[in-house]
């Protein structure tokens, strides 16, 4: 047996495999590592190391614009991921728990449209669309950004929820109905608890996607509605300061935290289901 295993084709045995892997990882992570390192730089250069300090974190934290942008980003991400996850859950139920109907593939494509349409197109479309609503209603609050974010977050929430629903044995819901559970009770007592990890995972993914969006936000936001990413973009246009490095690193930390939780959740699904 061992003999045969050794003879089997393995991509890891191709010449240069290790080298190529190393180059890929270096290209991916070296820039990020540089940013993280220089966020701890004592001097105000982004290219010259002058010793370790947390000064730039303090500067960023005390900057009122950064504070506002951070709160705004979190607020938008919370609302947008909440709305997107609710819609995505309903969409996932609608596409997995109904009889196959003509055009169901089209529906699937339509739900995932934001993944395929270039973001800049959506951004321009939303800008024009919201501009006319702004004129008509006179409202220019955060709701536009929240709705725009919710719209492009739907597929990110939809895909893990749908995957979870498809992986779930339909016979469980039939069994619940057999045991006197009404359709609503079946959903609340059987479907929802079993899909919950998928919903939480979808919400977290949507949250992260909303948190770092630049293009659509840049087009849709009104004056004074900078989110953290658009604020950073604005700063970089003027001068590159290690403050941006510090904010990037903090954002990176938060994202890693959420994505780790996402993978733990979806990973656990596989074992229990």
């Amino acid at each position, binding site marked *: 047996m061992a003999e045969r295993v050794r003879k089997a084709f393995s991509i890891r045995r191709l010449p240069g495999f290790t080298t190529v892997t190393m180059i890929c990882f270096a290209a991916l992570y070296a820039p990020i590592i540089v940013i993280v390192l220089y966020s701890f730089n004592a001097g105000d250069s982004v290219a010259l190391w002058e010793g370790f300090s947390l000064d730039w974190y303090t500067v960023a934290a005390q900057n009122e614009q950064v504070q506002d942008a951070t709160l705004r980003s979190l607020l938008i991400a919370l609302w947008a991921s909440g709305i997107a996850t609710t819609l995505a859950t309903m969409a996932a139920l609608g596409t997995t728990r109904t009889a196959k109907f003509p055009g169901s593939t089209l529906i699937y494509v339509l739900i995932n449209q934001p993944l395929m349409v270039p973001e800049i197109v959506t951004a321009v479309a939303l800008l024009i669309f919201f501009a006319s609503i702004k004129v008509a209603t006179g409202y220019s609050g955060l709701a536009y950004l929240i709705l725009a974010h919710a719209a492009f977050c739907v597929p990110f929430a939809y895909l893990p929820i749908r995957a979870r629903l498809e992986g779930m044995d339909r*016979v469980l819901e039939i069994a*619940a109905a*057999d*045991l006197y*559970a*009404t359709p609503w009770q079946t959903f609340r*007592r059987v479907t929802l608890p079993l899909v919950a990890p998928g919903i939480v995972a979808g919400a977290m993914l949507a949250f992260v996607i909303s948190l770092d969006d630049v293009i659509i936000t840049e087009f849709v936001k009104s004056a004074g509605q900078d989110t953290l990413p658009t604020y950073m973009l604005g700063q970089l246009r003027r001068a590159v300061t290690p403050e941006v490095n510090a904010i990037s690193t903090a954002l990176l930390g938060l994202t890693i935290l959420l994505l780790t939780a996402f993978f733990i959740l979806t990973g656990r699904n596989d074992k229990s289901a």
Partner: protein
Amino acid sequence: MSDIAVSAQSITKVFGSLSGGLRALDDVSVDIKTNEFFTLLGPSGCGKTTLLRLIAGFETPTFGSIVLEGVDITTDPPFKRPVNTVFQSYALFPHLTVAQNVGFGLEMLGKTKKEITHAVDEVLALVRMEEMAHRYPSQLSGGQQQRVALARALAPKPSVLLLDEPLSALDLKLRKQMQIELKRMQMETGITFIFVTHDQEEALTMSDRIAVMSAGRIQQIGAPRDIYNAPTNRFVADFIGESNFLPAEVAEVGMVTLANGNKVPAVVPDDLVTGSKVTVSIRPEQVELDPAGEGVLAGTITELVYFGTDMHAHVDLGDGSVLVARVQAEADRSLVKGEQAGVRFASGGLRVVEDGS
């Protein structure tokens, strides 16, 4: 209380379009008596599971109606029917403990916590799973999951319990044990059991009555003994146990003429006239072989298949047909492969069967 628990009346079920769709059930009518252990037996695709799903309410019939204790429930959704199912895959809720699984139906019926706890304890005792109440399904063996699935379906005390091949995933020894336990539970609870299986031995062991199904129709309904000893058609004779089939002609009352011209006694339906071409069946254990060559038929022994106490002897009758006889293994010495043997039939063994499917 009505004597009939479930009555399926002229049920036809077509999947897909009415003209080109799959006709899973074709004008099936059956009355299942209260407190009966009733088995739907047939090969896969015969419609037995469809009939079960129609009674449970997971499907609605294309034509016909389902009557439960005198009430027409044809269009009622499953959660309104006092009928519970034990699923082939058990379908235990993985996020609930054994006790919560078993209590689920009672909870949905709005019973109080006290009533639920009491009933759960009682039914877990019935299936001997008291120790496992706080485990999750993933922590149980297949056999244990099976017991919990049974307990969950029995807990709400349904009028009828439906069992969809519940033993098929168990190994042979456990299956034999569960067959006896299922029968015990049915006696103890007094609930009508409708059991679906493709295993004829399982059906014969447990059932009060069996409906043998094939191609969407019921071929024969009767007690295990009647089905085995008096199959009405070729399908039943072949599916339940083993049978030999021979061409024959009706000679006179209670007699048929075999292909070689010999007249032998057989069970012949009254409506057959003399001279009708028929098929007669005979069980291998009702075929006797005589090495001395005495008998109503004669042939050459082509094969001797030994399996423990019994042995199957294959006898070539010379006209292309082969007869299988089950003989005691001690007869081994007198029967020799390649030798001639006479064939006799035990009285009452030979029956005329309908040729239809």
